[in-house]
């Protein structure tokens, strides 16, 4: 019985931890998507320095989040976003509008998928 109580507490910790992780992912991905939207507008307006600054802001936040999430999320999902951010930097530095916009859109999709994968839904369960 003592073991069962300990197991119940561990399960409770897992459920609470899972919910907190889900909330953290939702909050961070929303924030990052918002900045990426602004970066997209800046690219459309040919404001390359502004877009680069916004990209750096995303990168800074992402690196922090990656450290926190890496023990819980599949590494390849996290690496895909890091690689995409690096590619975006190159496109912004070389002022390639089409590529930069495509990369930002890809990043948005990757962030959306990241959140989508961690939410407890019937689709994800099955």
């Amino acid at each position: 019985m003592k073991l069962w109580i300990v197991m119940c507490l561990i399960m409770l910790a897992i459920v609470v931890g899972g919910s907190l992780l889900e909330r953290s992912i939702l909050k961070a991905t929303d924030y990052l998507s918002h900045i990426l939207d602004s970066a997209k507008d800046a690219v459309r307006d040919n404001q390359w320095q502004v877009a680069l600054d916004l990209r750096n802001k995303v990168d800074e936040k992402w690196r922090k989040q990656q450290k926190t999430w890496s023990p819980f999320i599949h590494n390849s999902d996290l690496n895909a976003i890091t690689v995409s951010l690096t590619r975006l930097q190159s496109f912004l530095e070389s002022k390639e509008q089409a590529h930069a916009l495509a990369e930002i859109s890809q990043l948005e999709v990757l962030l959306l998928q990241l959140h989508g994968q961690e939410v407890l839904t019937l689709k994800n369960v099955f």
Partner: protein
Amino acid sequence: MLITLTRTFLLYILVVLTMRLMGKRQIAQLEPFELVITIIIAELAVIPMQDPNIPLINGIISITTLLFIQVTFSVLSLRSIRFRSFLDGRYSLVIANGKILEKEMRKARYNLDELLEQLRQQSVFNLSDVEFAILETSGELSVLLKSQKRPVTPEDMQLETDYEGLPLVLIMDGQVMTSELKAGQLGEGWLRAELEKHGIKSPSDVLIASLNTTGDLFIQAKEP
């Protein structure tokens, strides 16, 4: 490589701990649901062991959840007979009053070869000696022989017998078992004196020493 090594080490400890917490039964004695959980745990440990891209926590959470399910089911089984029979199934009476119950055998998908094999494993070679045979939920066969075929017991012979308790293992692999000595209300001084009587200087020279309830001390020294 070092990552795989560390992950394997951690998961091995987790699996051993989980199996230890699940109970002390051997594979053959596992109930169906316990066997399923055991197999799944082994599989779950292997996946994050092989692929360093999968977070270790995924394996840990899955194994912990299975342990939780197993412990919960065990607690519920202890408290509810209905739940226990749902989970473990019910035993099948395959021989009753010396007669094989074909219907029960068919229901349990248990054939005559299996019945005879399990009877032989219990040293029963003649089917007509069996009064009752029960196929347990673990798959083992319990057999009650006809009264004339059962081994004679001292009670049958109306013989008086002395009490026989568990022997105390006082030394194992050269180590004195202090808890056993305490249980027998004996001291190390007494033990050393007994060893000296057998020409042994130190407990570290002894492979095993045990004391039965009649006071006989069995000592086997280590090979030189």
